[in-house]
Each structure stands twice: as structure tokens, then as C-alpha cells.
């Protein structure tokens, strides 16, 4: 990519970011809503020990869960809903009839949603530190690897839903359904340790649960080797969902 291409790409990203802010949904649920959850639950529980005598504190566990919520907003809502709409309205078709092609626009949309994720997590961490003296005991590398894998898994689900949804309506339904079920049952909003046994079992079937477990684990100082199961499941989701999604796209004419 030369300087001209980079300048062009950055401008496209800027426009896509502006559009995301104007669309409000991604902006609100990615940046504002998790912060509201943080303040709401923080004002109720504070950063008290999770149980008497426990080293784990409420906010130290909740914030990685909220971070996964942000990843879910970008990967499972904002990006796939944009993609489904652009596909259905043939917006990509027009972009495809230019020298840059639709890949340029899709790449910019992915970049902007990744930026939303990073911004959302950064705001959460800053607010957590400022308001509740958040303590991160894990090492940066383990947290970064876990975050990247969790983000990739969320985007993989969204990608698959755009590929299997024969229209935007079905993609919307799948994304909303999975996102909200996972939001409340994965431990992203309420720590899974507070769930009854049956719900906890059900929660193990949800991909987001494993992202939450992984993120919470590495935040409190667990090594990656202690989370082999989560790494395997999230890695498997990426492989299978991206693979099946790509196969669906090659089989179906979506020009």
C-alpha cells in the first residue's frame, strides 16, 4: 500500500466512523452503554471482595466482562448489521464499480469497528481505574492475545450470520437474538458465579461465555496455559465460522 492508497483508506475510515456515530447504535452500545453498566453496577456493589476473604474484587472481574460486551457490540451487531444492509441495498455493488472495489469499503468498516472495540475497552479501563481503582494483575501479552482471539471470535459469529442470512432481516434477527442471549447469560454483565447451576451449564454452550472466562482469567493474573479450553473453543469458532461463512459467500451471488 503506497502513501496515496493509505491516505485514501484513512479518509474512507474517517467517513465510516462518522457514519457509525450518526447511526448511533454502535456508538451508544459500544462506548456509552458499557460505561453506564460500569457506573450502575459499581454504584451498587462497589469494588468489594467478591466473597468474604476473597482476593477477587467485584469490578476487577466485571470490567473484563464489560470489555467482552464491547467486543460483542462491534463484532456481532455493528459490523454485521452494516454489512447486511450494504449487501441488501446494493451499496457494495456501486463501490465495486470503482477502481478501489468493495473490499476497500469492507476493510474500512472492519477497521472502524475494531477501533470502536479498542476505544470502548480503553474507556472502560480508564473509568475503572479512576472510579474503582481497578487492578489488572495479568501480563499485557496474555491480555492482548486473549482480547484479540475474543474479538476475532465475535466477528466470526457476525460474519457467519451475514453469510447465512438470505436477507438483512434474518441477519438482524440472528445477531440480536444471539447477542442479547449471550449478553445476559455469558457472565458479561452479571458475573457467572452468581448464576444458578442450571444457567451456568446453559451458559457453557455460548461462545461469549468462553471469551468472558478467558478475559476475566487473564485480568486476574492467570496464565494462558490455564485457559486451554477457552483458547481451543474460541480458536475453533474462528476456524469453523469464518470457513463456513466464506463458503456461503462463494456459493451465493451477492452482487
Amino acid at each position, binding site marked *: 500500500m503506497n502513501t496515496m492508497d493509505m491516505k485514501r483508506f484513512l479518509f474512507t475510515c474517517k467517513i465510516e466512523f462518522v457514519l457509525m456515530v450518526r447511526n448511533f447504535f454502535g456508538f451508544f452500545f459500544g462506548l456509552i452503554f458499557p460505561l453506564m453498566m460500569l457506573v450502575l453496577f459499581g454504584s451498587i456493589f462497589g469494588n468489594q471482595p467478591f466473597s468474604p476473604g476473597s482476593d477477587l474484587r467485584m469490578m476487577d472481574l466485571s470490567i473484563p466482562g464489560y470489555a467482552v460486551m464491547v467486543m460483542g457490540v462491534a463484532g456481532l451487531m455493528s459490523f454485521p448489521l452494516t454489512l447486511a444492509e450494504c449487501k441488501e441495498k446494493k451499496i457494495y455493488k*456501486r463501490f465495486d464499480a470503482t*477502481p*478501489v472495489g468493495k473490499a476497500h469499503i469492507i476493510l474500512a468498516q472492519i477497521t472502524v469497528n475494531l477501533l470502536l472495540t479498542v476505544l470502548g475497552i480503553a474507556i472502560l479501563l480508564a473509568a475503572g481505574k479512576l472510579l474503582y481503582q481497578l487492578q489488572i494483575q495479568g501480563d499485557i501479552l496474555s491480555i492482548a492475545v486473549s482480547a484479540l482471539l475474543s474479538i476475532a471470535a465475535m466477528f466470526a459469529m457476525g460474519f457467519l450470520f451475514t453469510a447465512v442470512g438470505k436477507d438483512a432481516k434474518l441477519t438482524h434477527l440472528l445477531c440480536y437474538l444471539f447477542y442479547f442471549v449471550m449478553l445476559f447469560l455469558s457472565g458479561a454483565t452479571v458475573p457467572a458465579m452468581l448464576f444458578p447451576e442450571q444457567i451456568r451449564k446453559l451458559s457453557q454452550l455460548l461462545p461469549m461465555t468462553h471469551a468472558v472466562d478467558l478475559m476475566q482469567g487473564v485480568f486476574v493474573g492467570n496464565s494462558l496455559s490455564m485457559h486451554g479450553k477457552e483458547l481451543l473453543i474460541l480458536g475453533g469458532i474462528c476456524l469453523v465460522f469464518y470457513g463456513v461463512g466464506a463458503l456461503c459467500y462463494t456459493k451465493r451471488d451477492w*452482487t
Partner: protein
Amino acid sequence: MSQIIVQAEHLHLSYKNVRAVQDVSFSLKEGEVLAVVGANGSGKTSTIECVEGLRKPDSGSVQVFGQDPWSHRREVYRKIGIQLQETEYPAKIRVEELCRLYAGFYERPADWEGLLSQMDLEEKRKRTVSKLSGGEKQRLSVLLALMGRPRLLILDELTTGLDPEVRQNMWETFRAIRDNGVAILLVSHYLDEVEALADRMLYLEQGKQLFFGSQAEFRKWAKARIAPEDLPGDCSLEKLYLQIVPKTTGITMEGIL
């Protein structure tokens, strides 16, 4: 001698069981307007999309500037401007943002601010695309087709939704563009538009090419297909066309009134 810009030979294209394009061949030279006409579903847009490189023909070949538009899309798109039949843009994008975005796609973009004035969209530059009227959207899509200073313009239903005065202005603009050596491939349902702009015509019926030649040749060809008692008095292109195009079932008042 004028350079050949588009050369299509024996194009065939099917969608599942529908044979959309069957053995269509034509050429387009620089500084020429070729109008593709035919009833709805006759294969006009499918033919054009093969030229645009948006669809790969099942068989036959298309060359645009000597290149296959399907396999050399990006290079070809540097030289062509396209106005699609159905175009949507992101709903919340503003007119000037869309223009800036498209200008960035080309190495030597046109003066889009000047084009905004020419297309009477200057006052709408801050407006989001979703708030534009149908005619304004149409003018915007024409503006974007001109953004890359194209040597070939492909216009699919150029003046649909435009009022008569704007249509006339649009024709003037495209005559001037053609006179500058730009080749224009025009798909239209308006035969007055074809009469005003086209040098040659391609007439399609159910995916098959029935005629390719000049307007004068089309008149002769059409007259030969019409029974003498049915020949229209003024023999305008539109009246001749209406005589040869397959008849559709009209709407009856039965069950309405």
C-alpha cells in the same frame, strides 16, 4: 480512425434456468453513443453488467479498452464511469462527503464542486443522501459516474425520475461529453432520449439481439417488420419501437371500477 472502446462477441449469460443474454455482439467506438433498448427483462442490464465486469458471461468475450473487464476490473474502472440502474448509498452520508469519498478513488478526479453546481445540487451538499428526492439522487449518481473523468460512460436509465427540463439539460451535457471523444453506452426506456443522443442502437428481445446498427438502419429494419396499415404516420423512433416491441397485457378496469 476512431478507436474501438468496447467489443462484445457472442455473449451468453444465464441465471439458473433463465437465459438472460443469448448471442449478443456489438461494438462501441470513442465519441459514439450506443443505446441499448428493449422491453423489461429483455437482457439489457445483464448485457451491460458483462461490459462493466460485474458479471462473467457464460461464454463469449468482452473487451473494454482491449482488456477483459471481469479479470482486469480495477484497471478498467480507472477509465470508465458507471451509473447503475438501482443505486443506494449509505443513508446517513452527506452529498459532499460522498463526493469527496468518490473523488479519493481516482488519481485525477473531476472538479466535483463544479459538477455539483452543474447538476443543481450545490444547495444540497450538506444534506444526507436519504433526504434527497428521486431526481436529486439520480443527478448525484450521474455526477459520481463522471468523477473519474471517464473515457467510457455506462448509463443505465440515465434520466429516469428527472423532469423534462433537467432531462434536456442532461442531454446537452452528454452531447458535449460525447463530442469530447467519450464513448457512451446508454440503456434507456425513453425513445425520445435515444433519438436525441444515440448514434447506434442495439435492440434486444428476451435476451436475443434482434438489431444492431444506426438509427436510420433501425427505422428501416423496424418498418420492414410492421404491416403497412400499422405504420405510424410520423414514424418517430418511439412509435416504431412501440409497434415492434412485444405487447404486454394492459391493465383493465375490471375489478377496479
